[in-house]
Structure formats: C-alpha cells, structure tokens
C-alpha cells in the first residue's frame, strides 16, 4: 500500500515535469520556427532582387509553358500577371490552344489589363462568322463544320500581323495533324495562323489546311508542351496547368462534351509534362466549366491567386538554381 502510494506520487511528479519540459520544448520550437521563417523571407527577398537584376547572359534561362484548357485557360492571364509583377525573367514561351492564345497575345505586347478585357469580352462573331442560324443549320443538316478563319483575322488585328520571329520572347505553339496524328509545332511564320490552328477544336471547327496538313487543336497531342521550351534552350522550365475537375463539373452541351474529351486526353498527357517541368503552377480552376465564357474573370482571379501562393516556392527554387550567379 505504502509502496503503491509512493509510486503513484513519483509517477505524478515525473509526469508533471515531463509535461512542463515538453511544453517548454514545444514553445521553444514554435518561436524558433517562426523566427526561421522570417529570416528565410529576408534572405529570399534580398537574393531575389539580385537575381532579377542579373543580365540575361549571367543567369539561367527560364521557359514558361501554358497548358490548354479552353475557358479555364483564361487563368493563365492571372498567372502571367503574377510572374510579371514579381519580375520572373521569361526567356522562352510555349503553349497549346488557350495557352497558345494567351501566350501569343501577351508576347505580342498586349498589356495584361487589356488582355483581361479582351478575353472577358470576346464575341462569338470574332471566333467564327458561321456562328449564326445559317451556320448552325449547315452544321446540323449539311454536316459542315464551322470555319475558324474569322478568329485568325481577329488575332491578326490584335497583334498587328506579327510573325513568330517578331516576338520579343521566342514562342512556339502546338497543333495536331488530323490526317497523321502528328504534332505540328509553329515557331515561325504568321503568328495568327499558328494560334488559330492550335485552338481549332476538332468536331466543331473545320481543320486548317496548311502545307498539305489538316490542323486541329494541339491539346490532343501535347496539352502542355514543356519539351518545346526545353528544346529552345531553357535551363529552368515552369509549367502552368489549368487544372480540370472532372467529377465537379459535368458538361452540359455539345461543346462541353467535345472539350471534356480533350481535357481527359490532356490529363493523361500532362502527367509526363508535369514530371518534365522544374516547377508546376496548378491553377485551381476545376470548378469552372471549359465552355463557360461568363466565368473568365473568375478564372483569371483564381490563376493569379494560385500563382501567388506558389510564388515563394518558385522564387526559392529559381534562386537555388541561379545562386552561383549572385554570390561569386
């Protein structure tokens, strides 16, 4: 009995001390962790400024790839704004479908604010002159696909008939040859033609005839062309993926179903591209339907917020990659 009491007493006394020591360690660790985080931020901000001030020849070359994703792909505008505001140097760019549209217009010098307005207010008549009753009747009864020629003219009018070679950042986009299934890369010649071919949705638009090829949306062969910026010479690649959410949003019309097929194929293709890239920004726009044009402002907002959340990690990875250029 006495022994039991003594043991109980000792047990409680020890437990009390163990608890106190644990609490002390826990408090110590948390305040230490906070201080460490602050110290990291100070150094990161300092080196980042040095890094972005380096001349192009004295830092790693950075390539940015924008995925396909139809209306979800409007989120790329938000991502590009965050990268641009943070001063991330961009040396090469590539894109597919909506990624190609945003990349081309950004690269052609359209300010991001104007680009937002342009994408938010794009009219169906700017995409196809067949988007009218006559065109729809032809589509339904004569099985004649819509022409996307109007879209090429629209892009041309916005970029001032530029060629790929005229762009300040070397740029390439992807299209697919429906005859052979081959991936066709546009990195020279008229910019608007490549952009049109890259977003030319099969089953909706008639294929673009170009040099014996019949070109359709590049999303079916390369949804997120990371390899293109690598081939151009990028030492560090950033892939931007407008993430779909298949179970969250169900297609509600023909266009939605056609886009869903592309997205499903894209999800398989992007697995490789994600591994290939040095850094991936996932825009969490899954709740936005690929065919919902009214949601582009929200997609842009989500793109910006997703990129901003990833920005500290991106800066750290870039700094580690280029530290030898800052501290010699």
């Amino acid at each position, binding site marked *: 009995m006495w022994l039991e009491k003594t043991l109980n007493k000792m047990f409680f006394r020890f437990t009390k001390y163990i608890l106190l020591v644990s609490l002390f360690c826990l408090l110590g660790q948390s305040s230490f962790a906070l201080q460490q985080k*602050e110290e990291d931020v100070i150094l990161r901000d300092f080196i980042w400024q040095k890094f972005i001030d380096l001349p192009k020849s004295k830092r790693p070359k950075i390539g940015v790839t924008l995925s396909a994703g139809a209306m979800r792909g409007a989120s790329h505008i938000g991502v590009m704004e965050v990268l641009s505001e943070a001063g991330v140097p961009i040396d090469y760019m590539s894109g597919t479908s909506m990624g190609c549209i945003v990349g081309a217009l950004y690269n052609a010098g359209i300010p991001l604010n104007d680009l937002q307005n342009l994408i938010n207010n794009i009219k169906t008549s700017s995409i196809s002159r067949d988007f009218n009753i006559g065109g729809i009747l032809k589509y339904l009864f004569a099985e004649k696909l819509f022409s996307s020629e109007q879209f090429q003219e629209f892009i041309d009018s916005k970029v001032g008939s530029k060629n790929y070679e005229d762009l300040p950042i070397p740029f390439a986009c992807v299209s697919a040859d429906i005859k052979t299934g081959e991936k066709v890369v546009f990195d020279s010649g008229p910019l608007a033609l490549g952009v049109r071919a890259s977003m030319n949705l099969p089953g909706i638009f008639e294929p673009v005839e170009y040099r014996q090829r019949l070109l359709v949306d590049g999303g079916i062969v390369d949804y997120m062309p990371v390899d293109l910026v690598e081939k151009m010479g990028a030492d560090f690649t950033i892939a931007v993926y407008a993430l779909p959410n298949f179970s969250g949003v169900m297609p509600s019309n023909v266009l939605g179903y056609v886009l869903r097929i592309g997205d499903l194929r894209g999800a398989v293709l992007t697995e490789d591209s994600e591994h290939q890239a040095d850094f991936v920004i996932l825009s969490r726009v899954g709740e936005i339907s690929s065919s919902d044009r009214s949601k582009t402002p929200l997609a842009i907002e989500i793109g910006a917020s997703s990129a901003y959340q990833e920005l500290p990690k991106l800066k750290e990875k870039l700094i580690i990659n280029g530290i030898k250029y800052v501290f010699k």
Partner: protein
Amino acid sequence: MSLNNVFVLFLCLLFIPLQGTAFLGLTKRTDQKQKISVARNAYSNGNYEQTIEICQDFLMQNQEAPMRRKRRIYSLLGNAYAAIGDYDHALLTYNSALEVLPNDVELNLALANLYYKTELYDKAIEFYNKTLNIDKNNQQGLLGLGRSYLKIGFLSKSKQYFKEYLSLNGEKDKNVYYEYASANFLSRNNNTALDYALKAKEINENNPDIYFLIAKIYNTLNAPQRAEENINTALQLAPDREDIFLTSMLWKAYDKTTAEIALNKIKEYQIKNPESKLALFIEYVALLKLNKEGQAIKTLRNLQQMKGESFIKKVTEQILKND
C-alpha cells in the same frame, strides 16, 4: 332610440376591434423599436452576449416585423457574434439575413468584412463586389476589394480599387497611402510606391514600417544612401525589430565599403542570438566582399552544421556544392 343613434352605436361597436388592433399594433411597433434600441445600447456598451440574447428573442417573437427592423437586428446579431469571435454564427447570421434582404448594402459589406477577417478572400471579394453592384461608389467596398486583391496577389486589381477609393476619398483617409504604396512596391512600380510611401510618412512620422518600406524602395531604386537613412530611422523608432536590423546588415554586408561595419555588428548580434542562421549567412556575405574567401567558406560550413531545415541552409548547401 332613433335610427341615427343605432347607426352611430353600430359604427362604434365596429371600430372597437379595429382600434384595438391598431392599438396593439402600435404597442408592438413601440415594443420592437424599444428592443432594437436596447440591443443597440448593449452592443455599444460591449455587452455582446446580452445583444445576442435580445436579438434572438426579437427574431423569435417578431417574425412578421418589417424588413428594416429585421435588418437592424440581423446586423446587430452578426456584429455581436463577430465581436465575441464566434465567426461561424456571425457568418450564418449574415447569410440568413441576406436570404431575406439580398440587396442590403450594410449586410453585404458586413459579410464581406467578416470573410476578409477570416481570410476567406475569394468570398470576401464576392461580397464586396455585390456591395458595389448595389452601390457602385461604396467606399468600404472599394477599400475591401483593394485589400482582398492585395492578399491574393492580384496586384493590378488591388491597385485599381485602392486608386478608386483614394480618388473618391480625396485626402481624408491617408492611412490607405501605405497600403497603396505596398501594392505598388510589390508590383515593382517603385516610383508610384515611393510617392505614396512619402505621403504616408507625412501623416505618420513615427511608424517604423513606413520608413522600412521607403528604405526598401530606395534600395531597389539603387539609392543606397537614402535607403540607409530611412532604415536607420526605422531602427531608431523600433530598436527591437530584428527584421529591420538583419535587412540593414544584409545590405551593408553586400557592399564592399560597408562590409566591415556589418561584420562587426553582426558578430555582436550573434553573441545574443547564436542560433540565427541569417546572422551567419550575413557574416559569410561580408567576408566574401572583404575578399576573405577562406573564412567565408568556413562560416558557411558552420552554418551547414546547424540543426533544422530552412531556405538559408538550402542556399548554403548549394553554394558549397558549387564551390
């Protein structure tokens, strides 16, 4: 009894219940008004629990109360829940109120502010936008959007709404200058950032954060002397702020002409803070700039041995790997 008298009597009998109803209605109205007044007083005096009780009673007993009175009660109830930190109930209250009164500016704004406070910025943006859809020049709505977009990093929108707020508000709310300057600094519009940071300084000469921001802007603009003046003032105002001190030392260490000063000061700091990895890194930078490469590498190796994962350690390991 003449026919006329019978008619008058009939009219009197007819009006008694009507008068009674009117009287009861009047009493109820007075009672509701009184309850609102009591709830408001309780809220103003910081008696939030009491406010909640009164408001809940009111809503239970006065389901047919006019919308304007219900709005006041919902507003008080939501505010009282928010004041005691019961955000779940506050959100529920505002949302329930908005089901009845979807176009109420005050309720939309209160809900947006609460979402902002609970860091649900996308929802805050949704309700600030609703506020502006109802009242396009609502200043709190514009300010809320400026702040929310700043938090999610959509800087062009943040600047746009801050600018609209400032243009409507003129010179009245100069505290917003600092936030607008910060948004511009983050998006590397350094000249605008400087303009507004200096304006912010004029009205608040004792705020170390403003001087720190000005110093950072000058440093980015390659004006080291002005950067130093301002960071020194920030340190005088807040001598315990280690973030300001360490930033100042890092700048000095990276500059050959001041590296020696940084080295001495950081060694003093290390005596009190031996666990600081950044202090060791600053020592490395200063030694490197003073062409003492051997000692610099030795410092990095010491840093490498320190416990814990951090970005500073990753940088250290990469430099040593490259070396």
